[in-house]
C-alpha cells in the first residue's frame, strides 16, 4: 500500500542522511542504553523500599518501562521528526513544495523525516519487556498477545493523531515550536503506571495529552490487567482521533492555502 511504499522510500533517504554523521549511531545507542540504565536504576531504588507499587510488582514495572521505551522509539523514528518538520515548513512557507506533489499531503508530511537510529529503542523496548515477562514466568496466551498488539497499534494511532492535531494548530498560530515540549514533559510521566497519579494529573494524562493510551494501556494488556471496557474505549478513541485529526488537517490545509500571499 502506498503509505508503506512512501515510508520505505523516506526511510532510505533518512538512512543515507544519518550515515553521514557516523557519530549519531553511537550517540543514540549510548543514549538509549543510558536512559534504560537510569530508568532501571530508578525502579531499583524504589523497590529497595517496597515490593509493590500501587499493585505493580518490579517485573511488571520493568515490562511497562519496556513499552515506554518502545513507544519512545516508535514516535521518535517518524512521527515526531515529521511533525516537527511540518511546523517548520508551515513557518517558513516551504510546505508548498509538499503540497504540489501528486500524493496525499497528510501521508507525505507524516513520513517526511525518518530518524533511523531511533529504531534502537524500538528494538530495545520489547527486549526489556520480554525479559521482564520471562522473569514473571507468566503465561501469555495468543489472545493476550493479540490484544496487546491491538493496544500498541491503537496507542500509536492515538499519539500520531494527537501530534498531527498539535502540528495542524500551527496553520493558525505559527510560532508554536515549543508546544511539543509540553508533550515531552507529560510523556515523561508515562514511565510509571498512570494510576498512581492524583486525579487531576491522571485526567491530564488521559484527556489533555493522551499518554495513558501510549504506555500504561498496552502494558496492562501485556500483563493481563486490561479490562474489556477499557480496550473498547482505547480502540474507539483511536478511530475517533484518526478521523478527527484527518478532518482538522483538511481544514488547516484550506486555511494555509487560502492565507498564502
Amino acid at each position, binding site marked *: 500500500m502506498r503509505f508503506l511504499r512512501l515510508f520505505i522510500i523516506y526511510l532510505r533517504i533518512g538512512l543515507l542522511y544519518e550515515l553521514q554523521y557516523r*557519530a*549519531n549511531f*553511537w*550517540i543514540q545507542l*549510548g*543514549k538509549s542504553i*543510558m*536512559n534504560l*540504565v*537510569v530508568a532501571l*536504576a*530508578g525502579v531499583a*531504588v*524504589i523497590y*529497595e*523500599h*517496597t515490593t*509493590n*507499587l*500501587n499493585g505493580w510488582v518490579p517485573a511488571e514495572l520493568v515490562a511497562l518501562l519496556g513499552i515506554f521505551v518502545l513507544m519512545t522509539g516508535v514516535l521518535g523514528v517518524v512521527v515526531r521528526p515529521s511533525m516537527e518538520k511540518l511546523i517548520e515548513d508551515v513557518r517558513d512557507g516551504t510546505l508548498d513544495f509538499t503540497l504540489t506533489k501528486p500524493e496525499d499531503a497528510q501521508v507525505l508530511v507524516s513520513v517526511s523525516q525518518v530518524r533511523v537510529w531511533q529504531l534502537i529503542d524500538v528494538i530495545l523496548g520489547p527486549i526489556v519487556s520480554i525479559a521482564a515477562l520471562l522473569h514473571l514466568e507468566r503465561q501469555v496466551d495468543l489472545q493476550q498477545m493479540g490484544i496487546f498488539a491491538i493496544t500498541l497499534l491503537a496507542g500509536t494511532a492515538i499519539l500520531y493523531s494527537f501530534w498531527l492535531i498539535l502540528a495542524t494548530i500551527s496553520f493558525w498560530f505559527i*510560532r508554536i515550536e*515549543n*508546544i511539543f*515540549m*509540553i508533550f*515531552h*514533559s*507529560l510523556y*515523561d*510521566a508515562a514511565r*510509571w503506571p498512570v494510576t*498512581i*497519579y*492524583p486525579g487531576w*494529573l491522571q485526567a491530564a494524562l488521559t484527556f489533555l495529552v493522551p499518554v495513558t493510551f501510549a504506555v500504561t494501556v498496552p502494558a496492562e494488556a501485556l500483563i493481563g490487567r486490561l479490562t474489556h471496557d477499557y480496550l473498547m474505549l482505547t480502540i474507539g478513541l483511536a478511530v475517533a482521533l484518526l478521523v478527527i485529526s484527518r478532518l482538522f488537517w483538511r481544514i488547516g490545509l484550506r486555511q494555509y492555502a487560502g492565507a498564502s500571499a
Partner: protein
Amino acid sequence: MRAWFGDIYRTLFKIELAVMFQYRAAVVIWLIGLVLQPVIYLVVWLTVAETEGGRVGDFDAGSLSAYFLIMMVVNHATFSWHMWEMGYRVRSGSFNSLLVQPLHPFHRDIIQNMAYKVLSLAIVVPVTALLWWFFEPTLTPDPWMWLALGPAIALAFLVRFFFEWSLALLAFWITDTSGLNNLYMALFFFLAGRMAPISLLPTWGQTIANALPFKLMLAFPVELVMGRLTPQQVMDGFLMQILWIGLGWLTVHLVWSRASARYSAVGA
C-alpha cells in the same frame, strides 16, 4: 574596575530580562517540565510510603512532600542550559560576535540565566503555593535555617553554574556533546537528590553522592531548611560549596583560553 562590573551586570540584566520577556511563552512551557518531574517522583514516593504504612526510610508523607517541593524550587533556581547551547554557538559561528567584544561570554551567560530565574518567579511562586496547598507538606525549620537558606541556594547556584559551564566548554573539542550532557544529567538525577532524597539511595549510592559535588548543587539547601542537618554539617556544606566554586572558577579560567584557541569558525 569593580564599578564597571556593577554597571555591566545591571545593564545586561535589564536587557536580558526584556529579551526573556519577549519569549515568555517559551519560558512558561519550559516551566511545565521543570515542575512536572519533581511532582511525578513525589507521587511515586508517596505511593511507596502509603504501601509501607506511611513511611519510607526516615521520611513520612509530609516530609516527602516538603523535600520534593523545596527541591523543585531549588532545582529551578540552580539549573542552567548552556551545555546544550554551546555546541550550536560554536558550529553556527554565532560565537564570533561574542568573542570580538571585550566581555567574557561567561558573564553574559550567567546574567541571562539570572534574568530567566527572576522572570519565571512570576509562575514558580504561585505554582509552588498551589502544590504546597495540595500536597500538605510538613516543614518546621529553626529561624537560623531560614537565614542560611538564601546563601545556601546562592552558593549552590554558583557551584552548579561553574560546573555546568565548564562541561559546556567540551563543545569546543567534541562536535556533539549531547551524549556527555545526558551522562551528566543521569548522574545528577541520582546523586544530587532529584530522583529521591539521598538518604533513600542504597548505602553505596549515598557514599558516592556524599563524595561528589552534585548534592551541594541541589540537596544541600533542601536538607538544610528541612532541619535534617546539624549546624556543623551546614558549616561543612558551605565550606565545600566555596571550595567547589573555587575549583570551578579555576577550571573555567584555565580551559577557556584553550577553548577559544580551538575555535575554528565555520565559513569562508
